[in-house]
């Protein structure tokens, strides 16, 4: 299949790579079908790219990179991603640990959920606040 995304240009993908979100993503419910794009230039980010809206893509990270052990309670059969809100200043960039993307590895059905755990923030700093000495 061919698709042209505004940021990534021509994308060639197989139908079986398409992740179907029956409910869409919050605020973008009308778009149901996405592929994951690995753009080497912006590693370690991956991109959840709509194959229905050429302007729509979300940078995301594996949550284990941000918070080790995060995936633990979400099940082994699923691939988990967290979306990143990127700002020109990296210090202001955040990842959303509260409503991750959950993709069934077998069926490629995707869902964005809201976790009950109130200790997980919607805006978790991508880098430790300056002055912090790590160990978070």
């Amino acid at each position, binding site marked *: 299949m061919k698709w042209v995304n505004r*940021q*990534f240009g021509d994308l060639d993908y197989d139908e079986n*790579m398409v992740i179907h979100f029956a*409910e869409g*993503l*919050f*605020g*973008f419910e009308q778009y149901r079908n996405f592929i*994951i794009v*690995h*753009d080497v*230039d*912006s*590693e*370690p*980010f*991956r991109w959840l790219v709509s194959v229905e809206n050429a302007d*729509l*893509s*979300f*940078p*995301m*990270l*594996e949550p284990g*990179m*941000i918070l080790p052990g995060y995936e633990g309670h979400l099940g082994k059969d699923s*691939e988990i991603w967290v*979306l*990143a*809100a*990127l*700002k*020109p200043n*990296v210090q202001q*960039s*955040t990842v*959303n640990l*509260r*409503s991750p993307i959950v993709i069934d590895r077998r069926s490629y059905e995707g869902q*964005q959920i*809201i976790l009950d755990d109130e200790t997980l923030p*919607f*805006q978790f700093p*991508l*880098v*430790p606040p300056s002055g912090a000495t*790590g160990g978070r």
Partner: protein
Amino acid sequence: MLVLSRKVDEDIRIGDQIIVRVLGVKDGQVKLGIEAPRSVRVFRGELYVQAQKENLAAASADRSSAKAVAASLTHLGGGDTGTSK
């Protein structure tokens, strides 16, 4: 907006599959019990709104800003991140 008054233990039926019951009222807080089919997603309104807001912020990122941010993420190790397809 439809406005209804309900007492504790009374309910509201939305269609034939959704029941919202008032379980209790205490200190200005109303406790509700909701029964709905699994396919109907139920969220606290403010969480739904915040999730929407974060998605909107995430969707506005472009590749070049991601590249710039990625360059400052050396603390995450970068390199092989595994499971992408």
